[in-house]
């Protein structure tokens, strides 16, 4: 690599305003708090206890709270993990088939999130089963979307 590529050019221009990580955050009008998510989490619980998993998956894949803070997101996710792990393997395919493109994208984000934290890794097998069924239905597209999307769950 040539030397000129290493020059810190912003140091020569006081007005340039360095690019920060915050600059690339998606534009959210406000941050969703945990309180605002509580009703959805309750709803998820009641669907789960009545065994209506299809409705539960439908609920959490529609309009995920991208604009929540990290703590609220992880609370919310533990509710989702409960749903994901209680569905019977044989039902997964049918539930996945009903999702549309946006919902598939949201679902794969939650699957990856699950695989990235210890609580989810305990249920690695079931997350992989979801993953397999999802890619059978939607191909690699949700994965490519996940890789390049700055809206995280």
């Amino acid at each position, binding site marked *: 690599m040539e030397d000129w590529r290493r020059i810190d*050019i912003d140091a020569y*221009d006081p007005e*340039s305003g360095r*690019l920060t990580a915050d600059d690339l955050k*998606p*534009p959210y009008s406000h941050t969703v708090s945990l309180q605002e998510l509580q009703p959805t989490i309750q709803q998820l619980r009641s669907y789960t206890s009545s065994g209506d998993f299809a409705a539960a998956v439908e609920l959490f894949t529609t309009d995920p709270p991208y604009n929540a803070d990290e703590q609220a997101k992880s609370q919310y996710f533990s509710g989702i993990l409960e749903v994901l792990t209680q569905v019977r393997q044989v039902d997964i395919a049918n539930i996945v088939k009903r999702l549309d493109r946006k919902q598939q994208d949201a679902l794969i984000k939650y699957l990856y999130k699950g695989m990235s934290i210890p609580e989810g890794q305990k249920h690695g097998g079931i997350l992989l089963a979801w993953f397999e069924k999802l890619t059978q239905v939607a191909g690699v*597209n949700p994965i*490519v979307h996940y890789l390049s999307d*700055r*809206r995280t769950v």
Partner: protein
Amino acid sequence: MSDIAAQFKLVKGSIYSHCFNQDRSLLAITYDTDCYVYKVSAAKQPQLVAVLPDHDKTVTAVDISVHGRIVTCSQDRNAIVWEPLSNGTYKPTLVLLRINRAATCVSWASSGYKFAVGSSARIIAVCYYEQENDWWVSKHIKKPIKSTINALSWHSNCVLLACGGTDGYARVFSGFIKGLDTKEQVAGSPWGEKFPFGSLVREWYQGAWIHDIKWRSSIDKVAFVTHDGSLNITDYTDDIKSVDNPEGLPFITLCWINDHEILAAGFSNHPVLYSEGSRGWEVSKILDSPVKSAGKLVASTGDDEEEGAFGMSALRKFKELDLKGKVSQQEEKSTHVNSITELAAYKESNNNVTQVSSVGLDGKLVIYKL
């Protein structure tokens, strides 16, 4: 293959951008730190007629105006306008863009009197010629661009400028230049009332990098391709339609075929045609798709029966090592053997593009028939 009208291997390196002139007799391509100009006639190999050498870093984009002026921009942070002279040579004029990072893309407005340059300095420079100073002036659009601009496209009214970049936003700005443009150009535009220079007309957040964006001026629609492998179409109503690449790989470039068809291409080496039907946008045809034949490996491994002996497995291991890097002819290659970097309309009749030219990282120019 039937989708291919012509193909030429032009250079040994990558081509990032190309442009034909109005009557398709000249072709300009970027190659390393130069711009090569070719004379094109029918199906013959293009003839190199000029090398435009003034840049000293990689040339990133080239465009030719309606009047035949060539503009190039480069990582050396400059743009150069090349005026064709009667003896076939070109007279360069340096355009100072006043940016501190590489220029990435350039586009003439359809009038041919101004052009826009996108850069990694989070700036779009709109440049026009000032008669009294004999000088190309550049005016900056800065806010609210947050990252590198990858693509630019002028509306045919020469005022609206669409851009997309790595901050994940597709935006429409006003590139209105006082004294050059008139209010009549945008009278009755559905995009707004007033268009002062540099004002943000619309923005759409996509999340992923935007690789290319193009206007379809006649129906006031914008299409852009993103790094998540999707093609998105929107207009002034902000209603975004998205459709995925069936192969999952991202597109780098797109070209409107007519009001209801778009050709997109990128990392999968061959273009995909999308059309808008009653069920919205969907894939209608994959051009020049590589044919998968139930393939045999080129080299047979000979006596590779299971012997069970320890020595034999070691022998096979070495044989396999020996085969490493050899091509197995399981797939026929598509015409482009590397990513396609730019598509452009080549032949058009009744507002319907019938042939599309493309260049790629493999140094080839390919003309596709639709």
